[in-house]
């Protein structure tokens, strides 16, 4: 029995060590005009009622003011997305969305779009403990997606730490 216990403790330890590793969530590349960061959160926003999902990633070049938020929106229906808003309490930030592509993914329509947000707004967003809502605006309607508080707590802690790292490197350069 003890070897099995030892084995499972080993797996759990490996998993925990892995989860705490910050470099797992971002990459960075030196450019002539700054450092290019790419952040990939693992958690997704969902709307269980409409059976839609949203995953996203963030790209930031340190000499620019804006962060590129590329997102994949999965829906049963094909949509034309106009813009995206992130609502957190009484604050909200919005941006026009630019289409990258639309394709099918099994029974879903996979919409890949890109939006730009100010770095300061994104930084502030991930410093908040309250989980935000994402609103996607289509031609004539909109949909709202949310994330579980526990997932947001984990996700915001990781991303705010990466953003802190980016800010620290910007200061020294």
């Amino acid at each position: 029995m003890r070897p099995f216990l030892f084995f499972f403790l080993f797996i759990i330890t490996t998993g925990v060590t892995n989860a705490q590793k910050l470099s797992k969530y971002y990459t960075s590349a030196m450019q002539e005009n700054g450092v290019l960061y790419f952040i990939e959160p693992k958690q997704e926003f969902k709307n269980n009622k409409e059976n839609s999902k949203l995953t996203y990633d963030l790209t930031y070049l340190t000499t620019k003011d804006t962060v590129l938020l590329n997102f994949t929106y999965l829906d049963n229906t094909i949509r034309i997305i106009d813009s995206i808003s992130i609502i957190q309490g009484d604050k909200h930030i919005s941006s026009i969305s630019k289409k990258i592509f639309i394709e099918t993914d099994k029974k879903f329509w996979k919409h890949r779009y890109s939006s730009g947000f100010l770095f300061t707004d994104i930084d502030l967003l991930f410093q908040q403990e309250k989980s935000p809502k994402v609103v996607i605006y289509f031609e004539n309607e909109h949909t709202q997606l949310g994330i579980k508080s526990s997932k947001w707590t984990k996700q915001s802690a990781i991303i705010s730490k990466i953003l802190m790292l980016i800010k620290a490197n910007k200061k020294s350069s």
Partner: protein
Amino acid sequence: MRIIKNFMFVAAISLLLSSCAVSKSPLTGFLYMDVKAPLTATGNSGSSKVGSASAKSILGIVATGDASIDAAAKSAGITKIHHVDEQSTSILGIIATYKVYVYGE
């Protein structure tokens, strides 16, 4: 003596499993692997976009995903590729992932 026995047991199981789910990498780690490496570079200058694509294997029995350079470039709308990196991760040979990062314009 018991600790050595336990360690040998873990090592044996890990070695058995690590032969199951593996992903392409310049280095191999039987118990745990998280390796980033270069894949290719082009003569194009500068990058402002990054795209990624990945594929996953479970126990070497099921493997799914599209980790092609094309899929990664497409995800960020990249038309001029600057360089491509790959990342391979594996935990005890149970789950292995292979990820491609494309940098470009």
